[in-house]
Each structure stands twice: as structure tokens, then as C-alpha cells.
């Protein structure tokens, strides 16, 4: 590059466009492997793993089985709840994964995984044989862990913890609520998907209420005594929504044991609360298909080799994303995307009889306090000598507590661009 002269640079630029592809993406695929990989679940983890497998080794045949025709992104779905974003902007189809990357995308519900026969069966009776399987089922709720919170209760007290109809239901309830109403958010115990999510949600609901129903209040009843980016959220609440949001810690009787959907009440050990809109984010566990297959342990989550994401319970089955126990990594879209790549590289190496590369992982979580006030937490991870994913200590940390409005605005703009990039890196 450095010996290009000013005179011929245009020629060099145009020719480099012609020859350069995705350099460095095809190292492993020089052999004539014909491995078959099936990926179950097309969220940020599974779709990324499928795409990067094809980028790393185009000789591997990849089938992605996903029950929905399109994906709806959870990141930024709190903006739909606050009324500043159209949910259609969060939808993406699986077609590019098929056309651009040659992935066999199958829309079907997986009903059975047989890790001995190495077969995946779908509800319509199709069978898919694999050499290696990647399971990325996301989370499931622990129904009735909160007494009374079951599959029927979600129509009255939405969880809105999967983007889609539940997101819109919560939005519509807020629109219908009177000024002066009380919104209750029940925040779950860890580990759960999107640790800062409940608090970003409170922020963006407050953003809506402040403009349209300013006498209203938000009450967060929490299982926990602290939460992600707490100082930054509390600073933002005091700045933008003074007196509107109250957070009650678990040890201060914030722990909700029971709900009564038809009375719009929730109960802690000592108190009962009546809400006009109640958002219950229930306790969580690994997705149902992972548990039914026997990939989860007593904790409800899936133990894996954190270098390859191969299950500790079944060989040649890998579990990534929210369902996996991935050391210090949180359950987030970025983490699932990063794990999908590490897993793809490992699976490609294992299929080709190569040494598995030393992994590298990142997580970045943006949250919005207002649509122009962004905060973030980031971390870089490595595998330690005990095989556990740990944070590299020199890196990471949340946004600084001392920052100007322009810095917060920049982080909000980066948050919005991050959404576009993670969606395109995963599905496009």
C-alpha cells in the first residue's frame, strides 16, 4: 500500500475492488470437507453461527431451522414501547442468509433432537442428519415461578421480553392508560436475558409518560439488590424524570411472589400493589428444546466447553447464546453474536480435523435513557487457564458517570447504528 504513487492511485483502487473479497474468511475451507451442520434457532446466536460457518468454510453444508418466517429484534424494542420506533424497523427476513450465503433455511418447529442418532426432527416430520449440531434456542420463562403468572396472564400483564405482539400489547396498554396511572415493572432475578433491559424500559416508558401523561408513576419491583449500569440509570432518571421512577430492591421487599391478573395486583412478602399497566418480566431458563433434549443442567441453563461451546452433556452438540452458561458473558444480542462466531470457527475446525483456535469474544450493551441519552457497557473476554470465559481486566467498564449531553447524545447515535450493524452482521 505504501508504494502507491499519487498518479496511479485510482487504478489501484479500482483493481483492488475487483480482486478483494472477504479476505481472511476462507482459510479453513481449502479441503474438500462435506460436513453437515444443523443450526436450531435463528436469533442473534444461531443466525450468526450459520452465516459465519459459511464464510469460514463454504464446503460445509449448513441448515438453519427456525420456526418464525422473520426475526424481530429485541434490542431497541423498548423504543417501540415508548412510541418512538415502528416495530417494522426491527423485523428482518431470513432470505439473505439463503441467497447470499447458501444456507438451507427451513421454517419449521423442531420437536425432537436425538443426540445419539444425530438427527433433528421437525413438527412436519422432516428429519435432518448432522455431523455437528448448534442449538441456539434463547430463553424460556419459568411459568408460575411467580404464583399466578402463566401463559394466560401474559395477555393481561405482558412480559414483552420477546419482541413482537407482546411489545405492541404493552405499547397499547400504555397508550390506553389514564394520566396519573401507575406502571409496574416486575424485574427478574439473574441470570436473565438483557440485564439492563428492565431499566432501559422504565426509562423509555418514562420518556413517553413525561410528554403525554406527566402525572403518572413507574414502580420497579426487583428481585435484585443492584442492577446493570445502575448509577448511570439513576443519574439519568434524576435528570430527565425526577420523581417519576421508584425502584424497590429485593431486600427492601421488592420481590414479587404472586400476581392477580384480573385484579391488576402484584404481591410481595409484605405489600400488595395495584397497577394500571403491569409488565412482568418473569424468571428465566434455557429454551424448551434444549431442556427437553437434556442439554440443560439443574440450573436450567446449558453447561458448555467455553472454548467451542460444545455441550458438556452431549458430544457434537453445541449450545450458544442466552441458553448457554458462558462464563462472565451476559445474555445479550452482542454476546450471542460473538459466541456464534467463536462457535462457527470451532465447529469448522473440528469438522476439518484442525486445531480449534484460541477464542476471542466481545460484548457491548447500549441502553437509552432518552432517545438522545445513551449509556453503554462493554467488555472484551478471553478464555482463562481453567477454560472459563473471563473479562480482560484492562478493558471494559460502563460509560463514565461524568459526561456532557453531547457525549450522551453520541452514545445514543452509536446505539442506533449498532442496531443496524448487528442486524446486518447477523442476518444480512
Amino acid at each position, binding site marked *: *500500500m505504501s508504494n502507491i504513487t499519487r498518479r496511479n492511485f485510482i487504478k489501484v483502487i479500482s483493481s483492488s475492488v475487483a480482486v478483494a473479497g472477504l479476505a481472511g474468511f476462507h482459510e479453513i475451507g481449502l479441503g474438500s470437507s462435506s460436513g453437515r451442520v444443523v443450526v436450531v434457532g435463528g436469533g442473534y446466536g444461531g443466525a450468526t453461527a450459520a452465516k459465519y460457518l459459511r464464510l469460514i468454510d463454504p464446503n460445509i453444508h449448513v441448515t438453519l431451522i427456525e420456526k418464525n418466517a422473520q426475526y424481530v429484534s429485541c434490542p431497541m424494542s423498548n423504543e417501540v414501547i415508548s412510541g418512538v420506533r415502528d416495530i417494522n424497523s426491527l423485523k428482518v427476513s431470513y432470505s439473505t442468509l439463503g441467497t447470499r450465503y447458501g444456507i438451507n433455511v427451513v421454517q419449521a418447529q423442531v420437536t425432537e433432537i436425538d443426540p445419539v442418532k444425530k438427527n433433528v426432527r421437525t413438527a412436519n416430520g422432516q428429519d435432518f442428519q448432522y455431523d455437528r449440531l448448534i442449538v441456539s434456542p434463547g430463553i424460556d420463562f419459568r411459568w408460575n415461578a411467580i404464583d399466578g403468572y402463566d401463559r394466560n396472564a401474559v395477555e393481561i400483564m405482558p412480559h414483552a421480553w420477546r419482541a413482537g405482539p407482546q411489545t405492541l400489547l404493552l405499547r397499547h396498554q400504555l397508550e390506553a392508560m389514564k394520566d396519573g396511572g401507575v406502571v409496574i415493572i416486575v424485574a427478574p432475578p439473574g441470570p436473565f436475558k438483557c440485564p439492563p433491559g428492565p431499566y432501559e424500559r422504565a426509562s423509555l416508558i418514562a420518556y413517553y409518560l413525561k410528554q403525554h401523561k406527566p402525572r403518572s408513576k413507574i414502580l420497579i419491583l426487583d428481585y435484585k439488590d443492584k442492577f446493570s449500569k445502575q448509577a448511570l440509570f439513576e443519574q439519568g432518571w434524576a435528570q430527565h424524570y425526577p420523581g417519576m421512577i421508584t425502584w424497590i430492591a429485593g431486600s427492601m421487599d421488592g420481590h414479587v411472589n404472586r400476581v392477580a391478573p384480573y385484579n391488576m395486583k402484584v404481591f410481595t412478602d409484605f405489600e400488595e400493589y395495584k397497577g394500571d399497566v403491569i409488565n412482568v418480566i418473569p424468571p428465566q431458563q434455557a429454551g424448551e428444546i434444549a431442556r427437553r433434549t437434556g442439554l440443560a443442567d439443574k440450573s436450567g441453563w446449558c453447561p458448555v466447553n467455553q472454548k467451542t461451546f460444545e455441550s458438556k452433556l452431549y458430544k457434537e452438540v453445541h449450545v450458544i447464546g442466552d441458553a448457554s452458561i458462558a462464563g462472565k458473558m451476559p445474555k445479550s444480542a452482542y454476546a450471542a453474536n460473538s459466541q456464534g462466531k467463536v462457535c462457527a470457527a470451532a465447529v469448522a475446525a473440528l469438522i476439518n480435523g484442525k486445531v480449534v483456535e484460541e477464542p476471542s469474544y*466481545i460484548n457491548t450493551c447500549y441502553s437509552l435513557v432518552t432517545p438522545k441519552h445513551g449509556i453503554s457497557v462493554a467488555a472484551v473476554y478471553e478464555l482463562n487457564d481453567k477454560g472459563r470465559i473471563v473479562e480482560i481486566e484492562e478493558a471494559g467498564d460502563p460509560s463514565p458517570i461524568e459526561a456532557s449531553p453531547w457525549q450522551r447524545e453520541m452514545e445514543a447515535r452509536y446505539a442506533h*447504528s449498532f442496531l443496524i450493524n448487528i442486524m446486518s452482521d447477523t442476518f444480512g
Partner: protein
Amino acid sequence: MMRTFMFVVVAILAGAASAAERSASMLSYACAGCHGTAGASAGDSLPILAGLPREYLSNIMLQYKNGERYSTIMGRIARGYSDAEIDAMAIFFEKQKWVSAVSQLDPKMIARGKELHEQKCVRCHLGNGQYTEYLLPRIGGQWSDYLTIYLKNVNTSEFKQPQPQLMKESLSLLTDEELAALAQFYAAQQ
């Protein structure tokens, strides 16, 4: 093979502390969640990295890492890598194909930006900002929102942005509106 060889040489030269070597592709894949697959950012405030010179990428990341350049988040992430790993990622992204941003642009702003480019910037940013070599990044076809944020930060003493003296002087008298016009002109050079 060549790349691996180069990485090993660089790692030895830089005295990398990390015992377990992580490949350039493994390291670089993790960047794509914010910067797009192979550095082809699709988000308007985050820069395209693909095809930028190794020296530019490596230099700017080391400045983020060492706190010599202000960032909201890049420095927090850059500190997670050895200098050799940063250089390996710079080599990886240099090899990727540049994909110009497709921005919504205003013809009047582009025209104003062109005048300013010819008065202030043309001596270094050759080829209407498409030329890139060594420490000079390609800016033609870069995202206008990213360029606007960047230029505004250069002009704000609060945010440390090391720049050639000539660039600081050229930008110092420009209004925010003029900086945005410049950004739109370069974004249009796809």
C-alpha cells in the same frame, strides 16, 4: 499462511504478552457487531473500516487504547488487546473490500462541501477523499453522520483528537453547518 506468518513476526517484534495467540480473523470477527461484517459498516454513525490502511487503523486504535484520543467506547474496548493484536486486526481490515455508504444527502450541502474541500482539504485528501495511504484514511464514501461527529470533535477542545496541525487549522474557523457540508460532500464520493 502469509498472514499467520506476518502475525507471528509482528507478535514477536511487539513482545506480545498474551500466551495464547488469537488469530487476526478470530479477533476481527468480534468487531463486526458494531462495525459490520468485514468492516463494512451499515450504521451511519459508525465508520467503515474495510480497506483502510493498516498504519492508519493501527495508529488510531493505539491512540484509543492509550487514552491519547477521546472516544465514548472504543478506548474501553481497545484496552482489551495487545499492540500486536491491534496490528493483526488492522492488517485484517486493510485486506477487506471497501463498501461505500449509501447516505441520504442534500445536493446543496454537497455543493457547499465541495467548495470547502477545494479551499481547505484538497492538498491532503486527494481524489475527493477517496485516496488512502499510510496514515491518511479514505473518507470518500464514508458515512456522513460519522464524519460530522468526527469533525465536530476535532473542533471541540473537550475531546482530544490528535490531528495534523494543518487539519486543525483548516477546520478551526468552520461552523457546524460547514462541517456537516464537508461531511456530506465526502459521503457523496462513493
